[in-house]
């Protein structure tokens, strides 16, 4: 068994642009906003970066193909830059590239930068995805809310939860993120919303209403990573240092969508990736050991089942935990303390790195008004694709000492 990534790589600096409908900026400018902050935070000059990974998802808008837009915009020093794309888990994929490069010793310092410019389409919601030549001939015109809403139908069926009960719990999930997002100056949506307003919102995909869906945002996030030794040599204190404890990825192989076993009420790949990540990080009882986490709350129902898939709530127990406030800012394991995709926003290629950014700030006691008390481990969960066919990236970060 491979020994894993734990404590081999430290985060030297991070940056994150303000997320939102950035009508004033394209992807190039958004990247600069995140990159400049990350460089300052790392305390290095750009030429120290030995390799970079760019995460961007939507070719249809945004910056098109290849990593050249990052290399050009950031005037990188003719270093290797690789564009990665793995649906909405793209950000974590870019982070993974940079972290593995450092761990492998291929370079001393690596950059992961994710960006998405979504608000150049002319309509709300995500742009349609190019899906190749065969799928358009037989797939339904899937939308993200339409496929994730399927999970709700299966969850209600499996646990005999009424639609009203589920809607109420989903509303609590969104309301909690609105409360948290209001305290985040970089968040897209910064207004608390009542559960009644959430439940009364127009339907997008049964049973998900408008407030069950995350923001469609422009934004960028960046991480500069290196080894703990180099970080120390650059003046970072081990007590303040945040290292990567686990980094796992799991992809569907067709069984959920093609074999009559999966019941649709959970995300299989989240369960696989979480178990591997806990093992890699040495976490045995996540409900007791995790301090906080950021999940891929593209929709409220995704957040609900992810709490079970991560082993934090019992199967079928997330509704009760949510109603008990277990995941609220003042609960036992705060979830989406930065507002999550729901309110911080979801510029796809940036999201996975944005999640790490919040964990990094919290672990360094730099999260301002939303700072949690003495967090030790933070988990990020980045999910791309469809419940029946997807990519899940999980990272666990924590204090080095």
């Amino acid at each position, binding site marked *: 068994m491979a020994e894993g990534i734990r404590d081999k790589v430290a985060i030297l600096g991070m940056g994150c642009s303000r997320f939102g409908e950035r009508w004033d900026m394209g992807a190039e400018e958004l990247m600069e906003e995140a990159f400049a902050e990350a460089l300052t935070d790392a305390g290095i000059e750009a030429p120290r970066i030995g390799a970079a990974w760019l995460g961007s998802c939507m070719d249809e808008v945004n910056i098109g193909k290849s990593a050249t837009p990052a290399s050009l915009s950031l005037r990188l020093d003719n270093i290797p830059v690789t564009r990665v794309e793995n649906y909405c888990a793209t950000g974590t994929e870019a982070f993974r590239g940079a972290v593995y490069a450092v761990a492998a010793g291929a370079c001393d310092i690596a950059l992961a930068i994710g960006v998405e410019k979504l608000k150049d389409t002319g309509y709300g919601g995500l742009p349609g995805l190019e899906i190749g030549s065969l799928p358009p001939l037989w797939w339904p015109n899937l939308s993200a809310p339409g496929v994730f809403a*399927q999970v709700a139908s299966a969850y209600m069926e499996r646990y005999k939860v009424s639609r009203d009960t589920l809607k109420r719990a989903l509303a609590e999930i969104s309301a909690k993120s609105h409360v948290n997002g209001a305290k985040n100056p970089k968040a897209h949506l910064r207004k608390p919303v009542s559960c009644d307003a959430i439940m009364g919102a127009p339907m*997008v995909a049964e049973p998900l209403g408008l407030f069950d869906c995350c923001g469609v945002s422009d934004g960028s996030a960046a991480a500069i990573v290196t080894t703990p030794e180099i970080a120390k040599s650059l003046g970072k204190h081990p007590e303040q240092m945040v290292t990567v404890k686990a980094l796992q990825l799991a992809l569907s192989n067709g*069984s959920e969508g093609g074999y009559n076993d999966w019941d649709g009420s959970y995300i299989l790949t989240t369960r696989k990736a979480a178990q591997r990540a806990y093992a890699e990080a040495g976490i045995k009882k996540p409900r007791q050991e995790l301090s906080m986490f950021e999940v891929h709350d593209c929709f409220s129902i995704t957040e609900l089942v992810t709490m079970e898939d991560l082993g934090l709530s019992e199967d079928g127990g997330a509704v009760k935990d949510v109603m008990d406030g277990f995941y609220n800012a003042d609960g036992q394991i705060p979830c989406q303390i930065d507002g999550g995709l729901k309110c911080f926003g979801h510029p796809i290629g940036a999201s996975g790195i944005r999640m790490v950014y919040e964990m990094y700030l919290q672990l360094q006691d730099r999260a301002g008004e939303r700072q949690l008390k003495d967090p030790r481990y933070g988990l990020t969960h980045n999910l791309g694709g469809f419940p029946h066919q997807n990519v899940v990236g999980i990272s666990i970060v924590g204090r080095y000492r």
Partner: protein
Amino acid sequence: MIGITSFGAYVPRGRLNRAVAAKAHAWANPGLAAQARGERAMAGWDEDSLTMAVEAARHALAGRRVALGAVYFGSTTHPFSDRQNAGVVAGALDLPEAVASADFGGSLKAGTAALLAGLDRVAAGREGEVLTVAAEHRRARAGSVQELMYGDAAAAFTLGNSDVIAEHLGSHSVSTDFVDHYRAAGQPFDYHWEERWLRDEAFRKWLPEAIRDGLARLGIEPGSVDHFVLAEPAPRLAAVAAKHVGIADEAVADGLHGTVGQTGAAHASLMLAAALENARPGQTLVVVGFGQGCDVLAFRITPEIAQLTPRTAVAACLARRREETDYAKFQAFNDVVTLEKGLRAEANPQTALSAMYRKRRMLLGLVGGRCRKCGTPQFPAALRCVNPSCHHAEEMDPHRFADEPARIKTWSCDWLTYTPEPPAHYGMIEFECGGRFMADITDWDLGQVSVGQPVRMVFRVRGRDAQRGMIRYFWKAAPLATAKEA
């Protein structure tokens, strides 16, 4: 003995209440009220003559395992002018590719022309039965009489020389350029001449004469005809012709005007299917296709008709109905108004014809695979088994899912994504035999879709590429009859 060996029909379950359409146009044409009685069949947005033909053909073939030598498809509204429509039907039925196929069109006689050609093929002793199908998705201008009177439907027959339920006694055809209506190539709508002229010159003169000649040649006394099936273009015309021929009024078959509407080239076939549902051994049946001349076909019902398993034909289709009182929806489905569809509707992927050909059994026939090691049926077929405890790598045996019982495992209705009929319904469809896939759901009733609901897979339009003129077909899940349709 040669003749009809089986039959089936399909009528879309949507039925436009004529009164609501007439009322919408009453401001300009209060006279439409005269046509406002009853309802007409209305194809869904994802139906056309081809998809209806497939469904009627499935019903005709149900319960019978016969080798087919040819597929003939009569219509004046074939979706393709140059792509074998009958070949697409054959593909959707997953027939072996060694089969002849031909489209018949150009006149409302196209349905009976296909029937005649099929009977001739069987009479010539060619191998295999013949599937003939007639279908029509008729378009008419908003506010026209035709909009109220037309209907959409399909009917299909198999023809052969054993298990014959209706022996073909012979036929007689007349071609005369009597143009009561026409539609030039590329035109969307028919152009009609006065109905009184049609009645007086055709149904009182040359048509009864032609029918009389035909019956005389076949040695059939008009008074002995038990079922007179004349695809009349307007109500009561068949009775006029029957009277002039000397056929008893009781023998005149219902023109289905109050329930389906006039279905053009499909109408004689549809009425014939309805007549067969009620025919008794020994009875004489005369079918007349009308359109710039006529085809007269005579049949005698055989005792074999009692052996044919019960099937979905006109009666079952009439029972499966959903009243539509939203005339705006009818207009949208028939593309007679320019609707706002939203920017999402602009997405228009190319149809890769090479991929479509490679995967033709998958796309047209809903054929997946069955693992040769663990036996798991799966869709689509793959080179490695989808069963997580198998993953055996070997070419799979083909497995057709079209007629497999299935249920809705998960679902949603989606107001965001583009569909001509929001909200888009789709879900994970699970087959009882094994296998599942995320599929469009069609023929839904808002608020009536649920987990566990049984569905029937149906061949429908997936999307239309207006820029390139391509129509993409695939299979969808239709919830089985709910109480609302009773």
